[in-house]
Structure formats: structure tokens, C-alpha cells
């Protein structure tokens, strides 16, 4: 299963990928996580790839994404061709205007409403993804969030994740 997150620097795209990967590792699955970003710390494209499998994984980057989570137009435009024809496109509906079928929600607005912090958009999107796909268990992701986010921000990130999960369960 190949999952790709695409956005711009500052949206926490790589952290979302890392947490999904860690959740898969917690479940004993094989997982590879890589990233591609421009040298700008904010504003350039930012891509995180996660490949999850019960078999050994030899790929290093997503070649044919089963799922693409797009949080910004620039990120989407950079990698949209890597999504399989029958792949699942999940978007930040305020920020991405795709020319193909999609599902999604205004993740940034949801983040602001839930935590007061737009930068938790990554956790909202991750929650939505997990609810929609069942790639990994919700509990595994929550454990991964606790391990990976900066100390003291666990609760706010979990809150954002749960808001996204709820949105995705609707």
C-alpha cells in the first residue's frame, strides 16, 4: 500500500507521514517512509511517502500511490500524476482544486476550530485518512502521536487527530 502526503513546507506533512509509518511499525508491519522537500523551510513543496506491506519493501518512494493526501495546491500539482487512476484522493477542500474525483474536508479550518492552531492541520488530515481507509488502527496512531510529537503538545495533537477521525467517520 503506497500512501503519499503532499503539501507545502510548514504544514507538517513529513510528521504526518512519520506518524502513519510509526503506527504501521507498531502493528508489526513492514514500512518505509521517505520525504522530498525543497530547501526552503516554509512555502516550498513538501512530500512524504509511506509504503506499508506485510512483505519486504524494496521501493523507496511512492511510484503508484493508492492514496494521495493533498493539503496544498503546490504539493498536489507536484505529484498528482503519481496517483493511480483508481487511487483515492483526499484533499484540503479550501486549498486544493483538483480536476478529478476526491473526498475531503476543510482540514485547516477544522484544525483552527478544534485546537485554535492551523498547524495541527496535519493531524486532522491524518485522522480523516485513517477513518476513511482503516490502513492502521486508531489506537496505533494515537500511540505513535504520543511518541513523535514535541513533549507537551500530545493532547493538542491528539485532539486534532480525533477531530479529523470524526470528520472522516461521518
Amino acid at each position: 500500500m503506497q500512501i503519499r502526503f503532499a503539501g507545502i513546507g510548514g504544514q507538517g506533512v513529513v510528521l504526518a507521514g512519520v506518524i502513519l509509518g510509526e503506527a504501521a511499525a507498531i502493528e508489526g508491519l513492514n514500512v518505509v517512509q521517505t520525504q522530498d522537500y525543497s530547501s526552503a523551510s516554509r512555502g516550498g513543496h513538501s512530500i512524504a511517502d509511506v509504503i506499508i506491506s506485510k512483505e519486504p519493501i524494496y521501493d523507496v518512494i511512492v511510484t503508484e500511490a493508492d492514496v494521495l493526501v493533498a493539503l496544498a495546491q503546490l504539493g498536489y500539482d507536484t505529484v498528482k500524476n503519481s496517483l493511480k487512476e483508481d487511487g483515492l484522493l483526499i484533499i484540503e477542500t479550501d486549498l486544493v482544486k483538483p480536476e478529478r474525483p476526491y473526498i475531503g474536508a476543510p482540514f485547516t479550518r477544522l484544525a483552527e476550530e478544534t485546537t485554535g492552531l492551523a498547524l495541527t492541520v496535519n493531524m486532522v488530515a491524518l485522522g480523516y485518512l485513517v477513518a476513511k481507509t482503516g490502513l492502521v488502527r486508531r489506537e496505533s496512531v494515537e500511540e505513535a502521536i504520543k511518541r513523535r510529537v514535541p513533549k507537551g503538545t500530545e493532547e493538542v495533537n491528539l485532539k486534532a487527530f480525533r477531530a479529523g477521525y470524526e470528520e472522516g467517520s461521518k
Partner: protein
Amino acid sequence: MRYPFPTGKNDFIQGNEAIARAAILAGCRFYAGYPITPASEIFEAMALYMPLVDGVSIQMEDEIGSIAAIIGASWAGAKAMTATSGPGFSLMQENLGYAVMTETPIVVVNMMRGGPSTGQPTLPAQGDIMQSIWGTHGDHMLIVLSPSTVQEAFDFTIRAFNLAEKYRTPVVLLGDAEIAHMRERVYIPHPDDVEVINRKLPESEEEHKLPFGDPHGDGIPPMPIFGRGYRTYVTGLTHDEIGHPKTVEAEIHERLIKRIYGKILGHREDIISYEEFELEDADVAIVSTGIVSRSAIRAVKMLREKGVKAGLLKLHTVWPFDFDMIEELAERVRKIYVPEMNLGQLYHLVKEGADGKAEVELIPKIGGEVHTPMEIAEKVVG
């Protein structure tokens, strides 16, 4: 000994982090470095961990100072490492030769990025294969290892330290930007389960007095520790067994350099490691090293599904090179393909090994993306 990271269990970490942890488990207690993408996380991890294991991590003024510092630390008895990428590795070449000549065990990590010059800082490449072997001047011999997974980055780092200590030589760990930043599930063993080799120390007065001698007949002199025992002269100039400069005597130079070659080439079977996939009945072979090996394994699977009898020779040790093994391979297969992330380096070694017994074709790729399995498979199908 308490370790500042979990042992005896799986973790989900980057290649750079794996290298740092492995170094510590192998006994590394001195790290000197200068930050550079894509190797900086090794330094970050070492800066965090070293004080917790009674080690030292120091930022030097540049990469020349970094390798100089670890050479000094090694002579003071510590296992020492530095890590860098292309531009820094170029700066280290002079002292890499000094480490060869003074037979100093050190581990130099080079996480390759696109070059030449500052090139593509964030993107992987394999353009430093030849440099890692022949980058420093003069006749010299050292060991180069290249991992293709985060687990291998971990395992080969431990091996790099063990080989450096065993053969009293610098060892280059040749990774790349992809391995550096890729996260994978990796098993961090319990310290009791890690094989750790330590350098031979001088045991007799005679051995103390001859830090560049060959008392055991294996070409590897026991290495004294600065401050313990006799005064030791360490120089990059051609020297005798005591260590005193002898710069015009042909036989002394020849004996020294041939011993340095011999201690490594004479133990090739111990040093060279590789893995074979589906090679037994192969009609065409792929030879690869480092990150590209992952795509090569997939390519072999794809080709086998299509009925093409393809196999892979995945090199873990890049240098010394087993030319004889390649010749034997060339006698068994119709053609050998060499995919690599440069415009032809490993290819030349393979071609020399094949010695005309089979056609050898390069599958080059530059720009910052690893070959896809399909790219390799398509080339093989033609």
C-alpha cells in the same frame, strides 16, 4: 552500561539515526563533525547521545578538522567516527590518506548527494564510489561498505568499526541521501548480542617499540595508545617499523605500502561480503550496491515473472573488490547490467572483473531519483 536508546527491540528510525546508534553500540566514544545535508542528523544524534555514554561529540571548524580530530582520538585509544557528504568528503581526502599511512582505525561516513561541488544537497546519488576508493593520493588501500536499507546502515556501521579495529585501517561507510533520511523498521540488538572487535594492543616491549612492525605476520601491527608506554612517532611520511621517517629508501617504502595493501587484500574473504538473489540459474545478472540494490531486487522479481532468468549480485563491500567473483559470474551469464546513480563508476570495476567473458552494460541515472524497478527491468528486456 545504560544506553540512551531502547535496545533488544524494533524501532522506526532514519538511516542517520541508525548509524549513530550502531556506532555507540560498536564502542564509538568520540565523534567530530561539521554539519552538512544529508548527514547532519548523525551529528545531531551523536551530540545528544555522547555525553550520556561518557563520550565526546565536538563540532570542528570544518571537515578537515573533523577527520583530523578523530585520527587523534583514535591514537588516544578511542573508537572514533565522523560523517559528512560530498563537499566535506572532498575536504577529508588528505587526512583519509594520512589515516591509511598511519594505520589509524577510523570510520568515515559519507552520505552521498548529487555533485560535483555543492550540487544537489537534499538528493541521493552514488557519484562518490570512485572517490571513496581512490580519492586520496598515492598508492593506498582501505575498506568501503555500502548499505541499501536502514537495517544495513545499522549493521554495516558496526561492521565498519570492527573492520577498522581488526585491520587498523580507515573504513568508509558509503550511504546516500535516501538512506540518510528514510525511516524503516529496524532491529536494535541488545548490547550483549553485538559482536564488538577491539584493536590489538602491544603486549611485549618489542611490540611497544615497533608500532609499525608486523610481529604477528598478518600485516597488522598492534597499536599503542598515546600516553601509555613509549613515545610514539606518528607521521604521514614513509616510515620504518619504529615510525621514524625514512623518505628515500625504496625498500622501506615498498615494504610499508605493500604491507598496508597486503593486510587488507590478504584478508579479502573476511572483508568482502555480498548477497545473491536468484543467481543460480541466471542468464542475465545485475550487479549493484547501495540504495539501487532495492530497485534491483524488485527488477529481478519482475523479470522472473516475465520468464526472464535474471539474478542479482548485491555488493555490501565496495572495496576491496572481488574481481575474480565477477569473472566467474561473467562466465555463467550472457550479460551483466550495472545500475548506479552516476554516469559509470562501479560499472568500470565490473567490466574489469568480467574481462570480456560477458557483455557489461551500464544503467546510469543522475538527478536525484533512485532507479525505479521498471527502469532496470525495461533495460534488461531491451
